[in-house]
């Protein structure tokens, strides 16, 4: 009998698909959080594989801050349509009303739009299980989080009271009001994600590839002037050949100067680079345990 040796990507794919099917089998009302980044792209692709020939039997939910890159909005709508899935977009009405923005409100911006927005959206639609694209290699607090991560009725995460996860058995039982965040790509690393995108030909936002774009440099971060809401304090946007290693709100996401125009070049650059992925995000710089604190409060 011929044996077939499974590669690491085949093992990871099988595990992620297994997790997604467990959720669909056990959840009353599941949803996939979709942030339009590369991790979301991989997660969506895995969902298509897991449930084929059915379309993935849950909607996509984008918790929008209104400050994402325009190219992200474009791909978001297209990806949902291609997958034959319903796309729900939620914007926190209170943040909307108060005009919360990343230029004037600092940390409050993330808190109101993302953390609060996510809680409101989950409550509004009554979702009991939500897929997220977080990976354990991103950050130390995440290295210890379970694949099935329980949240109390007020969405809090208790790192000291996590359920043990053994073998491939996931305990999805919960009381009314409690919800579960499920991370099917927990065991993927940034390199795995890129390799898989390359191998499977998954469509990603063009911002990951280098192109000349209008930029200003502030506090050491190279920011892209994506629309005319960017307040220029006498600065003149400069065209630079840049790309993004991670995508979020454009005023908070630092670009890297790069000539990588193809996937292999992007991967090449990633492998040769010497700074970690999240460095381009303003959110993590506060303090060592900042992610853990944010998670306890309900941030993904």
């Amino acid at each position: 009998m011929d044996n077939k040796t499974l590669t690491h990507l085949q093992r990871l794919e099988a595990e992620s698909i297994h997790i997604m099917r467990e959720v669909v089998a056990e959840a009353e009302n599941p949803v996939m959080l979709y942030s339009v980044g590369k991790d979301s792209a991989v997660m969506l692709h895995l969902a298509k594989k897991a449930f084929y020939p059915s379309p993935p039997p849950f909607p996509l939910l984008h918790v929008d801050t209104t400050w994402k890159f325009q190219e992200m909005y474009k791909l978001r709508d297209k990806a949902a349509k291609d997958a034959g899935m319903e796309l729900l977009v939620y914007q926190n009405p209170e943040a909307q009303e108060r005009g919360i923005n990343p230029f004037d409100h600092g940390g409050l911006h993330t808190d109101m739009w993302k953390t609060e927005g996510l809680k409101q959206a989950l409550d509004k639609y009554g979702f009991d299980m939500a897929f997220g694209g977080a990976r354990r290699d991103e950050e130390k607090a995440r290295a210890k989080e379970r694949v099935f991560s329980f949240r109390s009725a007020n969405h809090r995460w208790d790192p000291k009271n996590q359920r043990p996860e053994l073998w491939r058995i996931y305990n999805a039982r919960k009381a009314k009001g409690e919800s579960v965040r499920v991370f099917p790509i927990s065991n993927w690393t940034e390199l795995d994600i890129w390799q898989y995108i390359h191998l499977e030909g998954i469509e990603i936002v063009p911002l990951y590839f280098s192109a000349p774009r209008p930029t200003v440099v502030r506090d050491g971060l190279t920011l892209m002037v994506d629309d005319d809401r960017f307040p220029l304090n006498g600065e003149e946007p400069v065209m630079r050949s840049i790309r993004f290693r991670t995508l979020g709100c454009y005023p908070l996401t630092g670009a890297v100067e790069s000539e990588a125009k193809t996937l292999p070049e992007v991967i090449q650059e990633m492998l040769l680079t010497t700074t970690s992925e999240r460095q381009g995000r303003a959110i993590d710089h506060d303090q060592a345990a900042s992610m853990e604190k944010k998670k306890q409060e309900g941030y993904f």
Partner: protein
Amino acid sequence: MNTQDSIYKTDALIAENIEEYLEAHQHKTMLRFITCGSVDDGKSTLIGRLLYDSKMIFEDQLATLEADSKRSGTQGEEIDFALLVDGLAAEREQGITIDVAYRFFTTEKRKFIVADTPGHEQYTRNMVTGASTADLAVILIDARKGILTQTRRHSYLVKLLGIRHVVLAVNKMDLVEYSQEVFDKIVADYTAFAAEIGIETFTPIPISGFKGDNITGPSENTPWYDGASLLPHLEAVEVEDSREQAGPFRMQVQWVNRPNLDFRGFAGLIASGQIRPGDEVRVLPSGKTSSVARIVALDGDRDMAVAGESITLTLADEIDCSRGQVIVASQSPLEVADQFESTIVWMDEHDLVPGRAYWLKIGTQTVSATVQEPKYEVNVNTQDHLASKTLDLNAIGVANITLDREIPFAPYDESRDLGGFILIDKISNQTIAAGMINFSLRRAQNIHWQATDIGREHHASMKHQTPSVLWLTGLSGSGKSTIANIIEKKLARMNRHTFLLDGDNVRHGLNKDLGFTEADRIENIRRVGEVARLMTDAGLIVITAFISPFRSERDMVRSMMQPGEFIEVFVDTPLEVAEGRDVKGLYAKARAGQLKNFTGIDSPYEHPEAPELRIDTTEMTPEEAADLIIARLIP
């Protein structure tokens, strides 16, 4: 001598020919391993070193690490690798790892997932969790200390969880002057011990996580050692594919895919073997056979699938098959049983309650299960067997388990997927234990249910009534027996055939061997439930008057009955009122300490959450209560 350049991501290749590099990396395999040891053994330092040496640490992380090392490190001016892996804020302050953390690193040949768990006895459950998915274990030993109690414990757990590859990493060789004598002595000691607990082979390696000896390549400090260094060994260990694929085909059905009436796909992860279109299969437990029509995938149908892959297959015939059932090669079916002997690792703050019904999840199936009193508990340090009536947090014991239905399974030794299970508390929903099936008990296979010709419907129709159970629950002195008596008298006048089971009376006969411990109370209710069920089969209306203080046992009895047959009546009397009445003088005795485990005093009463009826005895007479209950029974 250093093989580092050939092992790790070769910057030159990446820079010169990224396509070739990607091609090479697409064929990497994956190895999951666990590191066993404590902070003192240099475990976190070793993992930090592996991440560092395989260049998984970026400059900004290194800068943070250097700053952290100066602030809270334990290595003076040197980099404290342990700080890289000690994650959550609380444990960084305490200086210990308290949970299971997963780390990742990669070389040209393999991706590695490291389960990093704490080594102390109070974290046995964490180590068991980490070990459950590991293919290999690195058991760390401090060269200065040799084999300790914890080494024995770790090795026992590694063996228990079925990890097939063991590395004995004799660490801190730099502190014993790289002495071969020290190393050989430890290896000899461990060889004897390993044989004792059934570890057949292991690979000993002398290392220093702190200095980096024999991690990525041979160390000049140990010229007497000619075996592989740690990382090259981890890269070369045989992965599980061939062993998994050699077994017969087994797949637990996870989800049935029905996009339209013409398609019915069975989705699951293959636990063992291989499958091709045309292969004959059998669905368990029903035993129905068919053959595989297609293996369906997004990028086109497949010719073959193997163990470890998540697939969707369709069958040639329309046969019943749903989540939790197992599709197997038709010529080698699995055993099906509802009673097992298993080894159980207790993971919850609340002790095991023998006889209580828990959820048991095995693969994709969840059933109700009761655990009997342990045959013995295992001392994890000495592996001695101890007598025990229960299992508490981190305890490991062997006990029989009874399920509410038959399931297909394999002994854990043969299959982690088909023999490993978790227990879930029905009220808190917590995962409270992990278990491994040793073997099935023959009893279940030999006692067949005797089908009778005159069924329950016949009995009931002869009596012109609908069988029911009126289950009265409440504190001692709440008025259950009084109300139950009045109900029975009234029903008798209405020509209804009834039977009253009273708590005190039953304890004189059927249950006279039982006391008032939590376990005995549960068995008391279980027996009463079984008797009540037989009586409803006989067509009777059963009235019971038991304190029945625990929610899970009342729910267990409810689940024994037909839907709608069980009517839970909460006889609600506040403790002060019941104690004030104290008809039998029991409260006074309990208060005086002469009666132990008395409900409401030193044993809890769990209020029904959604009883069919609630009787407030402070607001109505027993007569009125009886009328209200009868009105619910016979509208």
